[in-house]
């Protein structure tokens, strides 16, 4: 596994059309296995940064590389191979009607060998194998979040993007998410997690990217 940084951002600047720039000439590098908690008040661009790395927004300037792939590149499949995301709305928009199909979807779109096995492994790692045959919309809020997380890791991404993933989880599900994040990091996955829950940030992150009043600091 090369020691080359998973995520490289150089002179990145971004702002929504017609609005003030959220950040200017931001440069960041994250090595494999790093877990970064992204903190700071609302509206400073925390989620936008994740969306830039996910190729869902175009930078105004600067360059991004995720495991060698430019997220703004034409092929969505290339980025999907190396990245996985759990957005705030992921546990409301399931694309399939069975949990096992939902979790295997990305692997199937990437034509990876045996997507069903990859899905079963992901469910096993989150301790929700029992939900495999259920309809995602019949699950409770905690189960839905865990299925969304399983769907984001089944295809073995190098970068995992999480947006307020701890929101609304009870103690057991919170523990499951924390253990999964630590296990992924141990396997070399880089994880960026936007959260406003300090306890959760301390439990998972080795580093903090703080969107403060005086700009963005990595501590």
């Amino acid at each position, binding site marked *: 596994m090369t020691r080359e940084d998973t995520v490289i951002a150089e002179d990145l600047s971004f702002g929504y059309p017609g609005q003030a720039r959220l950040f200017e000439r931001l440069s960041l590098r994250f090595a494999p296995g790093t877990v970064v908690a992204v903190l700071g*008040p*609302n509206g400073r661009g925390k989620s936008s940064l994740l969306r830039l790395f996910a190729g869902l927004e175009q930078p105004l300037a600067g360059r991004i590389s995720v495991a060698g792939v430019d997220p703004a590149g034409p092929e969505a499949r290339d980025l999907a191979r190396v990245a996985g995301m759990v957005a*705030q709305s992921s546990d409301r928009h399931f694309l399939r009607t069975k949990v096992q199909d939902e979790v295997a979807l990305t692997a199937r779109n990437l034509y990876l060998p045996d997507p069903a096995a990859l899905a079963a492994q992901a469910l096993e790692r989150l301790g929700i194998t029992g939900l495999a045959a259920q309809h995602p919309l019949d699950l*409770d*809020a*905690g*189960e839905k979040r865990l299925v969304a997380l399983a769907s984001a890791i089944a295809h073995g991404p190098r970068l995992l993007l999480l947006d307020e993933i701890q*929101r*609304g*989880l*009870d*103690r*057991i*599900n*919170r*523990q499951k998410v*924390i253990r999964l994040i630590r296990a992924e990091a141990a396997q070399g996955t880089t994880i960026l997690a936007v959260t*406003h829950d300090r*306890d*959760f940030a*301390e*439990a998972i992150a080795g580093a903090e990217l703080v969107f403060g009043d005086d700009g963005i600091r990595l501590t």
Partner: protein
Amino acid sequence: MALNVSDLSFSWPGKPPLFRGLSFALAPGERLSILAGNGMGKTTLARGLAGFLTTEGGLYWQGEALNSMSRADHARLVQIVGQRPHLQLSGRGYSLREEVAFGPENLGLPVAEIRARTAEALHFLNLTHLAERDCRRLSGGETQRAALAGALAMRPRLLILDEPMTDLDAESRDALAGHLRSLPWEMAVIFLDIGWQSWMAGLVDRHLLLDQGEMHGPLTTEALFATPLPERIFLAGQPA
């Protein structure tokens, strides 16, 4: 007693009871929290307590059975504010003012009363400056305050908050908590959540715990931190 719940239970057809033997009483102005993990039936419990479900056992408001009231009386008595802000707007009003007025209008109140209640609710939640704003342009936090404003415009005597903060960012959460602290005191309020949260401090000091259908408590906040809890119940501030 305002609200009297005795041995309340509910189960979906063909499913084990979601909760049973739930008993407590609530006087006007009293606050109570019911803490339960994911999948323990919080939202169903909220609808049950509001009288929306055919539950078994006693559910009385000042002696009158809650789930056999007329819809108009029901709407004047109890309001629920849920987790997802956008699902609670009627979509009937374009401006925030029309949205909040929707409830009082439905009660067929005189114009002056509708206007007074609407202005009061908007003012109470610091939304007056957004009164003419198109509802669809509000932020998540503003929408949640709008939902609470709509509920308060009905002048309920029982307010049930079902995970009101879960979808909010930290700033909106603090803003809403501030408003909850100055709720009209004669209203009984029930908070439903996945665990004790820091914004509850000073707001509610009587907690019931629901786990696997069984009810435990009531416990004070202090007792909550002292006694071992069902494993799903979450306490903010404790090491994760």
